[in-house]
């Protein structure tokens, strides 16, 4: 990344912001850890209602997973474009990332809506409370990421790859990959283990 920073001060700022952002990601990780722990404790507390295996639609979840992983790939393409100073590649990759991310959120919302309509809403049991909150918090993060993505995309489109925007894009990429990582755990702990156990 040293090619991006122009002066020693900017380089220093880059490292400060990056370290700060890593620390923030760590706090977010702890937030998810708390929700995972709660889910693990409450997963069996179905209060006579359905358990995971009865309500998960694995093909849909698999589709979500593939979509989100692909969006991580396109996000990586944006970063490569940024390093090659290829604004066009950055913008196209960001558009792809946005569409994939949006598809993920839409599918998740549809899945939630269906569950609620069937009477398996977050109020129905402690297991469902934990399920909706854990998965929903991840979805909320993705949505915030989408908002951030729109702002960065529009600014890069208008102003080109300024040093400030390159910095933002780098941080965004960290955030997006982080969410991907969290999803891998959601997929494993919530869905796969829910179906197998």
């Amino acid at each position, binding site marked *: 990344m040293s090619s991006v920073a122009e002066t020693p001060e900017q380089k*220093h700022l880059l*490292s*400060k912001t990056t*370290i*700060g952002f890593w*620390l*923030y990601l*760590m*706090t*977010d*990780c*702890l*937030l998810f*850890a*708390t*929700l995972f*722990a*709660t889910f693990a*404790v*409450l997963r069996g*507390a*179905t*209060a006579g209602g359905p358990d995971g295996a009865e309500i998960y639609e694995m093909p849909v979840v698999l589709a979500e997973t593939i979509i989100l992983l692909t969006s991580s790939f396109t996000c990586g393409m944006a970063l490569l474009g940024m390093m090659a100073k290829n604004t066009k590649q950055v913008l196209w990759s960001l558009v792809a990332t946005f569409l994939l991310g949006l598809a993920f959120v839409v599918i998740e919302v549809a899945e939630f809506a269906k569950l609620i309509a069937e009477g398996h809403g*977050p*109020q*129905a*049991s*402690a*297991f469902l*409370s*934990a399920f*909706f*909150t854990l998965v929903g918090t991840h979805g909320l993060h993705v949505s915030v990421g989408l*908002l951030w993505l729109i*702002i960065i995309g529009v600014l890069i489109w208008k102003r080109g790859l300024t040093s*400030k925007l390159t910095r*933002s894009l780098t941080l965004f990429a960290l955030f997006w990959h982080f969410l991907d990582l969290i999803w891998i755990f959601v997929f494993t702990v919530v869905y796969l283990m829910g179906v197998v156990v």
Partner: protein
Amino acid sequence: MTIDWLQMLFGRLSLDALPSDIVTIGGAAMGVFGLLFIVGLITVTKRWRWLWRTWLTSLDPKKIGVMYIIVSGVMLLRGLADVVMLRAQQALFATGMDSPIGSDLFQQVFSAHGTIMIFFVAMGVIFGLINLIVPLQIGARDVAFPLLNSISFWLFFAGMALMNVSLIIGEFSAAGWLAYPPLSTLEYSPGTGVDYWIWALQIAGIGSLLSGVNFLVTIFTMRRKGMTLMKMPIFVWSVVGSMALVVFAFPILTATLGMLTLDRTLDTNFFTSDMGGNPMMYVNLIWAWGHPEVYILILPAFGAFSEIVPVFSRKRLFGYTSMVWAIMAITVLSFTVWLHHFFTMGAGANVNAFFGIMTMIIAVPTGVKVFNWLFTMFRGRISFKTPMLWFMGFIVTFTIGGVTGVLMAVPGIDFQVHNSLFLVAHFHNMIIGGVLFGAFAALAYWWPKFTGFRLHEGLGVAAFWSWLVGFVLAFAPLYILGLMGAVRRLDSYDASLGWQGLFVVAGVGVTFILLGVFFQVLQLAYSIWKRKELACDHDPWNGRTLEWATSTPVAEYNFATMEAVNDRDEYWETKYSRKRRNHPKYSDVLVPKNSGFGVYVSSAVVVMGFAIVWHMWLIAAIALIVTIVLAICVGLRENVERVITAKQVAESEKKLWKGAGA
């Protein structure tokens, strides 16, 4: 449809929300009139513009630090007013006389006391000290993210404001300072109190979390050249430990409060007593945050004492390396002891044994620190100024508190004294004797650095002795009462138990503490009045670390030149080494421009919190959108710094050093 819109606008707010009992009306009236008085005073003296420009929008950590400490001081008075009511009830009315404080109000008061003292007094003063001291001690000109720092303070302020609004509109939580479910669930606490509690803590907590990130990055990336990690002043090390704990523990609080919010507003079943809910999960989570929180508060107090003892003993700190390792050991171990808060949960003998042993182990690094301080004093030339007196008080009370803590770490004993006044006495020993005495010592010690005059010594000594005597009188009886079986949060007991005498002694102790606070307020006022006579130079205590090297009052840019550091006690070494400094060469300095975003974000968030508490969904949604827009604006800010030219630096240095009589 019209009714629906009204519902969206006003939620469950109505005129019934105003206080009706005489005690709350008194408190609310005092709050409102106090605020009106201050607003009036600022308006009459035409100070609004000045206040806005020099304080409210300032990104200078020294100013932010002072604002933290002022808020914390005001909240200390409120927390004390609460405790006067509690002890008055227990000493005078508990055996059946008619009391002005009913049971319900009593519950609100003890919940308010704990919440305010921990979140808005102890946290406030600790963050205030960190803001004031850390950048100076590492030889930096600022923190890593100045605007984020201001936003952190204003979120803390927003939480405080929301908590105090509950005095006037609505009610305080009556569920204790940690709001255990199922008592705090909708079923048993349908009012607004718990919601106020949740949102005040959530908002202030996010502020603390951002501060934690900010100061860790500051310490890791902005130290003066040559200051390796093992050359950092020990206070900075203690802040590293404390902020690492903030970063690791506060997300747990955020998530836990979030789940309690969902239980109360969306009827989920995390912590309810039916539908599979698990109240003990909440208790586990809240203490997984809560125990590290204790160390978040105490570590910087340890750090301050570690600065004070060498200076007033005229010796290097004994065992610097072991001190650093002790801090880090405490930081890690503090995550392994949370279950000792509820041995009686029934987790089983093996689990209890593990947490009991870990609790005993964590006392070891603390013991290392105590011996290091004592060995630092050994054969030193000790001068017993106020900061040192607070240290002496601390070392006694804290050791007693530590010993009772290890006692309770034995699960078998804990079963006897769980939730008794013995426990209450123990943690007050740690928090008053540790955190508060540490804060008082630190304030007395660093006060002259920022003001250019000392605090009056005689009044400081009087305050110390009143506090110490009051403290012993107020809490020694609670140990005895606890062993006699008195539980905490008790508003009435049978006269035949014979407890009243001890409660009266505790009450007398409180009056001594009040006397101490009176002396402290007097000391402040008198010292400011007599500031000319108490004036001192930039280094009144013959200090050792970098903060004493710069001018007093400290310039906005902290240091005019940035020479490399060679030694742990850098200033002491340069002061007493033969080599004189060359004529300093100044260069341009970048400082952050003022920004009102802290105030804006804080206002939006207070409105959002208030609206959610009262279920005013329309207003809550608008405030949320405003907050998001503000966050985006913060991200898009440009041109955030201004230059102080080398020439201006030279002029300001000349003026500052002349004023100090150097």
